[in-house]
């Protein structure tokens, strides 16, 4: 066992000597420091409506037409400044002077379809933001008009918090940072380490020592795993600082470690099969892409489980993590029974 520890230590030392771990941490800090910008950017990409919730921009809309429309009240409720203008010319002048962000023409509601006109600045970002802010009052106005026309819309009074940010954080950001990144790094580290030794033929010299090949490979896997656990813990701290709390932190990190170990085993297998680094890395990236893609089709994928654990679902717990633990065990047994033959066969 002590030889095994020595091997793991050697693995870790080689990483720290070459400052790689520092770089990994720099990447982490770099991304974390951008996280608010990235979150806003990605969020608006995933759900453009989120701009309206997150923005604190106050806008001012000039109204031409029916000044008694219920829309006026709805706009004020959403903290939109409204100003009525007697003629389009006045509104246009105010718009060009920059005192207005948009101009709306509200026709009289005469029982038929209401054809509003909205004038927005020709700048994509600004007009998108304005439109997103105006969307909610417009929808409520639409519901008012429907009611006036005898159309009943159910559930319109259901009050909840817009959920996309929540979903995005726990279903995308959390699994990405706590599981995918560390696992991906660990996998490529194992590949680099194994294929470097295979290409340099240094494994032969190591073999001469009283070490089994499985011990050597195991140490590499454990080395990668160790780094990924450190990273996962760091990420969860950084997430905490950024206001994302993880429920069931223990099981969440354990799940990440189990999945990382599975990926590290698979990557050790890949590098033993393909031997040279470039091909191994290529196959490995494809493997990661496919398995991540595939996991979307299973109700009980690790990603889903992590989301459910992290949000505190009462129906997810350590037992689900244990299931993956069993899969890992099976993988380990299978890998270690073929690894020696695989490497000896070709060398």
């Amino acid at each position, binding site marked *: 066992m002590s030889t095994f520890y020595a091997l793991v230590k050697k693995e870790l030392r080689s990483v720290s000597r070459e400052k790689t771990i520092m770089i990994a941490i720099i990447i982490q800090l770099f991304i974390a420091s951008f996280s608010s910008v990235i979150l806003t950017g990605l969020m608006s990409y995933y759900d453009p409506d989120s701009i309206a919730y997150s923005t604190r921009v106050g806008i001012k809309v000039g109204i031409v037409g029916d000044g008694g429309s219920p829309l006026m009240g709805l706009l004020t409720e959403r903290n939109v400044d409204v100003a009525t203008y007697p003629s389009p010319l006045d509104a246009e002048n105010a718009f060009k002077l920059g005192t207005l962000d948009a101009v709306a023409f509200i026709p009289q509601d005469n029982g038929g379809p209401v*054809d509003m006109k909205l004038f927005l600045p020709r700048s*994509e970002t600004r007009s998108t933001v304005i439109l997103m802010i105006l969307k909610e009052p417009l929808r409520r106005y639409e519901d008012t008009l429907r009611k006036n026309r005898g159309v009943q819309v*159910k559930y*319109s009074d259901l009050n909840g918090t817009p959920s996309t940010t929540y979903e995005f954080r726990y279903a995308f950001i959390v699994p990405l940072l706590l599981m995918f990144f560390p696992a991906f790094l660990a996998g490529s580290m194992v590949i680099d380490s194994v294929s470097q030794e295979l290409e340099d033929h240094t494994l032969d010299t190591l073999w001469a020592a009283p070490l089994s090949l499985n011990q050597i490979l195991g140490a590499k896997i454990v080395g990668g795993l160790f780094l990924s656990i450190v990273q996962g813990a760091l990420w969860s701290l950084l997430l905490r600082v950024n206001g994302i709390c993880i429920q069931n932190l223990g099981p969440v990190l354990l799940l990440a470690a189990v999945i990382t170990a599975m990926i590290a085993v698979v990557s050790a297998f890949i590098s033993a099969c393909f031997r040279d680094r470039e091909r191994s890395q290529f196959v490995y990236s*494809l493997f990661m892409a496919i398995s991540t893609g595939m996991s*979307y089709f299973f109700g009980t994928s690790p990603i889903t489980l992590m989301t459910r654990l992290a949000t505190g679902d009462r129906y997810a717990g350590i037992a689900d993590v244990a299931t993956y633990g069993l899969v890992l065990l099976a993988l380990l047994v299978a890998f270690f029974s073929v690894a020696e033959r695989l490497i000896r066969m070709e060398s």
Partner: protein
Amino acid sequence: MGSRFRGSSRSAVVLILAGSLVVSYLVSQQGVVLGRGIYRVGVSPDSPEIHDKRFSAMTLVPSKGYSMLNQKTIDLYLDGDKAALRNDARSLYAAGALKRYLERQELARIKDEYEIDRAFPLRVELNYIENVTMDQETSLRELLAPVTAKTPEPMEADSGALDESGARPTPRPRQSQQQETQRDSDSAVRQQIREMERGGRWPKIEMEFASDKEIIIPSLMTPPIPFAQVMIAFLYVLPVFFVSIFFTSSFMDEKTDGRIAVLMSAPVTPFEIIAGKMLPYATFSLASVMIITLLLKGNLLLAMAIFIPVLFFVFSIYLMVPLTYRTFRDTTFISMLAIVVITSYLVFPAMFSGVNDLCYISPLTLAVKMYRGEPFGPKEYLFSTVPMYLVFALSMYVGTRILNEEYLMRFRPLYRKVAEAIYLAIDRSHPNLSIMLLSLFLIPIVYMIQLVAVALSFNMPISYAVGGLLLATAMIEEMAKSVGIAVLLEKGVVSTPRHLLALSFLSAAGFLIGEKLLLYLSLTVVTESTLSAALFSYGMLLIPLTAHFAFTAIVCFTTRRSGVRYYPFAVFIGSTAHALYNLCVLGVIP
């Protein structure tokens, strides 16, 4: 590249590629569900079924449902037309998500149960107008002329009442025109209903900017993705990254198995070796750029003009990686770091296109403009691409200088490698000129790092951010000006104070020339950014030159006095002075 995949491994690769194709097909067919089963809701037997993968729903009788809701084992209970929830975050989010889902179901219902005029009574016509220029484009007044002409008339209100009772006998001339527009908006409603039925959960991506007129129905509206740039960026940049990783790998391979040493002893110049290795990969990337442009129906020549510098830039960074690093693991890490940094450099500014003119520092902004059919001038082009061309030129030059066996194979810490590279890059027969040119050519790199620093500072509290930024930018500048001289000091090429003074002056002058050129470029593009004013000191030429000279001299003489080992300390002293000077210029310190 093809020869790398032979025999059994080739079939494995083909298999995996086929697998990935199948997966991407499945993903595109089913759509990606984020947060499968994230909410747990109970529904009463008479409630509508929930067909949304985000909800794991179970049918519960009300008594059980309410008690489970109180025990927090479910997030929400849907009892017929009513939803019961708790007042905690999880329950509120579930309600928010369910509301959105149910609203959609309701739309589908009312669309079938009522005629279109009643189900979708509000249509909003969007018009985009210039708010700055006063040219004779479509004006708000003209656009509103036909509708507003009639609104103030009291008769119109009467006819509205008539309309409601449905007893309007004879249409008047103006009415026909209104019906015209109604038919327009009706067809817009129908089209948007069709879009909704197709299940367009994903918002549409608009490559081209919204046409001048567009009719939206608030409840059916799928907002355009504001940052289509991100999409374009990834489409273009990802293949380039992929190919350049292969380039790095192959360089590393030749380095480790010693083939590069053989090449170097052959009668070819280092430039030919690097260019020869880069050419196939660069051609590949260029081809991918061209294919993407053709697929997106963009302007081929323009796209090439925009992306060739980007390609150069990416390759110049990936050229430096194998030249400086020795092991595969390091190259992997550094490549990942490079991807992160380059992507943020390219993508973040482009996100702000239209908000701030600084977005032009990324060529992707130009690509966005191109796809929207908006014009940009040669100044904007130069502003975003010149730094990239310069970085490429610099790295090609340095690459050819350091391409020797000793440098490539020796294992040393990174900062030693950099010092070594700078020493090799300096032409020893013309140290003065070299130092001046070095400062000048480091400008684009300084500029890029400073921009990254600006981006990083957004995350700090504002009081720390400004101070930290001032010091950081000063440090970067001082380092750029003095690093070459420090290397010469260490190697013993410079020793006399007089020579040191001369070199400090030349370095400051070189830096200033570069800075002013950049400033000129940025001021012509970025008209009103206070950021550029803060980043690049202004004023007359003489004062900044003296200042630059003084700070560089401080760094150099401190280094000379206390030894090269204390270079970081010397930089710190020089930069503190520089930052204080900047504060004075900005008027913070009187």
